[in-house]
């Protein structure tokens, strides 16, 4: 832990002002003709000393707070274990649409309507809960990739990013190729310590040109990344990719993408988002790959203590106000 330092140390020069309550002011006492009539009172003296002490503390805390004490930004060493999973999530406007479902059969409850984004977030939250020791990164994409969270074992960070994706509406355009490249580049320069996976979450396919296909293929291979495609069916008419083979007709975008992925050298699996069993299977599969302990550094932002100082000063003020309220302002 680094020592406490001050953002504006010059203000500490004001600290002697904390001695001000030691000065006596005429206003603080009532004139009296003959003090010999008043008994000596140790309780009164003690209360006055307390008042002085608390008033000095108040001023001291305020000046300290203004000088903004804190522990500077630092890096702490962490040891992680488990797979590195980069979540690449589609945040285009189509994800805000609700999932169309089959009409309920006779005697069956209608399934609740749910937007695709909600369904995905639910699934991914479940995933995060299941594997807290894995390291996750989160990248959103529509027209351009948005790096939300870098690799970290701080699940809360990723969860917060995930929750934030619920806000607003996405763009119409979807550029999956750039998103994929961003996710792949996220692994660049990291030592290989555990199985690596990209969790691509999307509701549709994309046509990728040959150049991009080559780059994706090379990237996945170079960084030894397995690709997991979590496919969200927009309606009962969407193709069930789990059942589609590698030689299917590629006129549909989803199917074309699936076929491209399936023909890559890298590990590839496709899952339906509304199927928890298949998700669980995916996790187990990721887990079975090798797990090495990983030492990495996490940046800890500057911790500011000025707020604590001000709270302390405020509580001192409340005490002083209480003491002052009991003070007699006039005789008789």
């Amino acid at each position, binding site marked *: 832990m680094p020592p406490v330092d001050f953002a504006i140390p010059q203000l500490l020069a004001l600290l002697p002002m904390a001695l001000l309550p030691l000065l006596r002011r005429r206003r603080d006492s009532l*004139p009296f*003709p003959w003090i010999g*009539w008043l008994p000596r*009172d140790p309780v009164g003296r003690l209360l*006055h000393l307390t008042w002085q002490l608390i008033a000095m503390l108040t001023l001291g805390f305020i000046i300290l707070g203004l000088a903004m004490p804190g522990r500077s930004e630092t890096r702490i060493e962490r040891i992680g274990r488990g797979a590195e999973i980069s979540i690449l999530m589609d945040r285009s406007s189509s994800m805000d649409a609700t999932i169309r479902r089959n009409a309920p059969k006779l005697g069956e409850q209608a399934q609740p309507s749910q937007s695709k984004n909600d369904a995905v977030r639910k699934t991914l939250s479940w995933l995060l809960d299941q594997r807290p020791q894995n390291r996750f990164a989160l990248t959103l994409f529509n027209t351009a990739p948005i790096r939300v969270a870098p690799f970290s074992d701080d699940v809360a960070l990723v969860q917060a990013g995930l929750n934030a994706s619920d806000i607003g509406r996405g763009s119409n355009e979807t550029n999956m190729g750039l998103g994929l490249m961003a996710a792949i580049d996220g692994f660049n320069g990291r030592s290989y310590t555990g199985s690596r996976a990209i969790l691509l979450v999307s509701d549709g396919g994309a046509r990728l040109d040959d150049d991009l296909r080559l780059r994706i293929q090379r990237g996945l291979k170079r960084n030894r990344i397995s690709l997991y495609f979590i496919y969200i069916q927009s309606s009962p008419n969407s193709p069930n990719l789990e059942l589609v083979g590698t030689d299917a007709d590629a006129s549909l975008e989803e199917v074309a993408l699936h076929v491209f992925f399936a023909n890559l050298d890298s590990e590839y699996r496709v899952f339906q988002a509304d199927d928890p069993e298949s998700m669980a299977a995916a996790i187990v599969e990721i887990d079975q790959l090798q797990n090495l302990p990983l030492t990495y550094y996490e940046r800890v932002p500057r911790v500011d203590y000025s707020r604590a100082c001000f709270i302390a000063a405020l509580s001192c003020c409340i005490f002083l106000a209480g003491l002052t309220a009991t003070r*007699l302002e006039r005789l*008789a």
Partner: protein
Amino acid sequence: MTAGMHEFLYKIPGITDGYRPGAHRSRSRGAGMAFAGHARLFDYPDPRRIDLHASLSSLHGEWLVRTSQQRSAVVIKVVVDVSASMHFGASTSKLEVVADFLLALGYSAHRAGDSVGLMAFDHEFREDLYMPARSGRGIGNAMAATVRASTAGNAPGSLQGLSECIDRIAGSGGLVFLVSDFHYSLDGLATVLDKLGDLLVVPLVVWDKAEIEPPAEGGLLSVRDAESGRIRRLWLRDELQRQWRDKVARRRDELGALFAASDMRSFYIEGGFDAEALSKYFLEHVV
């Protein structure tokens, strides 16, 4: 409120030495109702007062006239403490109360034909507030104005100041009002009072309600002595209020004993000046 409403009656025991006609019994001969004796017409050439019966029985066969004793005026001196503690007062300062008293005294003395002089002291005799004895209608107002205009300062009252005043009036006859709160050491007061043996001395002890009665509600009380500047802080509670009252009562006893030893009786002014009470004081205690 007019000055007349504040008038009080006073009298002086025994026979005074004044020569100005006034209201008090005196040794001076002159116009008066009390028979003093017979004198030769040659010495008192006032044929209206020839006493035939006395002349006939005179051994020397002289004409005798009746002489009577004249009632005389006396000189009243007021010695006022104007130290910082006398400027204290919760609603009105004690010196304001003293000014009320001086107004009433001026009026009463004018009615009796007496003259009044003012002397003030704090830690020494205050030359600037001195008013020699004179008689007249406005003397009370002049004295009250002088006392009211005295500056507060923080001069402590002391026996030394009182002693300097008393040295100036000792030996003369008449009536002396000692107006003070006696908030100073009383050691040696008896010696000082002894110098006034041949005067009628009325010690007026002026205290404010706020100083003799502790505030009803408890709480944190921080007070500063008006003279020494010392500060005392109290957490006012029943116990302290009792001690406070005890100390006031003890001071009262102490003063009472001191004055009684010098054959004086103090008159307490607590809060406002009550002229009627002062009249009663003279009626009951001055024989």
